[in-house]
């Protein structure tokens, strides 16, 4: 019988601006919190998978190796992963697989990021046919403009109105107000969101998440050892990465053309990852009690939820109108407040999602508790059509 893997500890450094701390300082804090939560000593950690931050040289790219440098040179294997916004769950996947395949009985996935400077700009030109350079230079195609193109297509196809996008922000701001780890804890109304400055039609400033700083860590072990560390183990039922499929007309950053044959449903990388995650876990969309998904902007919450739960296009608008995606609704989405409230610390965001889901499944989040949540799903989407998904289940 295949091994089962449990999460026995999580820890987060609050999301926000911390000019007095280095990225390594923040990562160490999150790591120590997660180890404390797991009643585990650093010397017991058998495998380290870290999410790299691309904005710093060694401190970001080799951040996993800074943990033994700070906490103790135990000889532990360290793997540093970068997968754009899909980085953190990709690191979780490495840690999960190390236990699943018997390489280790314990592991930690950890990540941190510090990029609170706003809009992304083109990276260095890497050579001929670099589409990322071309899309910025030729078209001025920033990430939010791509999302705006998706959003206006959605408005045309399923009748979503600007009101819906604003309502997503209002709902997430109500959730985020209850989260001590969130950077933005002010509640916004639909009118305030609609009246905030237009960034790229139809997306307004308050509907686009801010880039940010944060750190998070998740401690895992073989399920048969879980009770040694925590009386409330959470099973990792899937930790999956998948990419987009040719024939999907969705404009993927930084591609400069797409097939217009409409052969495949949109957001194929999310559908691919979700289907793989359901297959790996033996679960189905109706088993999911709580979702933490990647709301880079309000559009994502509507479109990604449909891809994750295999719903008809437009169904998320109805769920939103019914209040079904609030903490007390039938399928709560982003009870943490999402990236909308936390801000997005790219390389660490998925581990913040995993931490929130673990706390939800343990019943430890007070006012933002989803009642009797047993199964949670976390999802982040990475540049170039890379989607990561984890499914976590209560195992106590």
């Amino acid at each position, binding site marked *: 019988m295949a091994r089962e893997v449990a999460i026995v500890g999580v820890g987060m450094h609050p999301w926000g601006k911390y000019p007095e701390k280095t990225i390594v300082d923040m990562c160490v804090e999150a790591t120590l919190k997660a180890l404390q939560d797991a009643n585990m000593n650093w010397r017991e950690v058998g495998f380290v998978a870290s999410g790299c931050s691309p904005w710093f040289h060694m401190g970001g790219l080799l951040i996993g190796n800074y943990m033994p440098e700070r906490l103790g040179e135990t000889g532990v294997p360290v793997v540093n992963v970068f997968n754009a916004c899909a980085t953190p769950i990709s690191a979780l996947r490495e840690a999960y697989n190390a236990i699943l395949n018997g390489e280790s009985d314990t592991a930690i996935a950890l990540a941190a990021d510090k990029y609170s400077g706003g809009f992304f700009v083109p990276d260095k030109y890497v050579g001929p046919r670099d589409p990322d350079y071309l899309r910025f230079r*030729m078209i001025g195609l920033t990430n939010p403009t791509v999302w705006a193109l998706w959003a206006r297509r959605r408005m045309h196809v399923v009748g979503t109105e600007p009101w819906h996008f604003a309502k997503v922000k209002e709902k997430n701001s109500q959730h985020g107000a209850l989260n001590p780890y969130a950077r933005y804890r002010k509640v916004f109304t639909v009118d305030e969101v609609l009246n905030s400055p237009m960034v790229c039609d139809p997306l307004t400033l308050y509907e686009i998440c801010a880039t940010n700083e944060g750190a998070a860590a998740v401690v895992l072990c073989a399920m048969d050892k879980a009770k040694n560390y925590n009386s409330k183990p959470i099973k990792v039922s899937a930790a999956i990465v998948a990419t987009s499929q040719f024939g999907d007309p969705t404009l993927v950053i930084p591609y400069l053309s797409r097939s217009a044959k409409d052969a495949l449903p949109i957001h194929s990388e999310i559908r691919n990852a979700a289907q793989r995650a359901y297959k790996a876990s033996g679960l189905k969309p109706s088993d999911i009690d709580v979702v933490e998904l990647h709301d880079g902007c309000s559009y994502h919450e509507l479109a990604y939820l449909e891809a994750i739960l295999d719903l008809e296009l437009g169904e998320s608008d109805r769920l939103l109108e019914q209040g079904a995606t609030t903490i007390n609704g039938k399928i709560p989405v982003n009870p943490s407040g999402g990236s909308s409230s936390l801000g997005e610390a790219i390389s660490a965001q998925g581990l913040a999602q995993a931490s929130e889901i673990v706390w939800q499944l343990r019943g430890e989040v007070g006012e933002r508790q989803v009642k009797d949540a047993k199964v949670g799903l976390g999802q982040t989407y990475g540049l170039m059509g890379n989607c990561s998904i984890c499914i976590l289940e209560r195992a106590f």
Partner: protein
Amino acid sequence: MEAKKKVPMKNDDGMPLFTWPSDNPQLIGSRCKACGEIVFPKRPQCPKCYTETEEEILLSRRGKVYSSTISYLAPWTMFKGSVPYSIGHVELPEKVLIPCRLALHPSGQPLPIGTKVELAIEEWGEDEEGNVVLMHLFRQI
């Protein structure tokens, strides 16, 4: 003072993106000889069937808006003087979707989906050497 040199924007390996100079400029793409799939810009390998039998083709000058937006922020120096600017996803008859600039409509609103548009070449900011860069965009017919 010497007039500034006008140069067409090129793909970064020096490959032109459109025919120029021309009275009827066209985007340069490629078609897979094996499966017929068309992509832009021209590339050596087919993204659908993965064979390396691409041939150069000139794309239709007219298409229709698949989606469009207007950006009120410019994160990249070349666009600083151009705000607001319009971006679209244009569908060509070859069944290919191309993200590209759109000429800003006098109303200031994004062009409705389905609007018929035609390729034009316009001056588009200056490059690092101070040349005026010529760039393709689509304009409402």
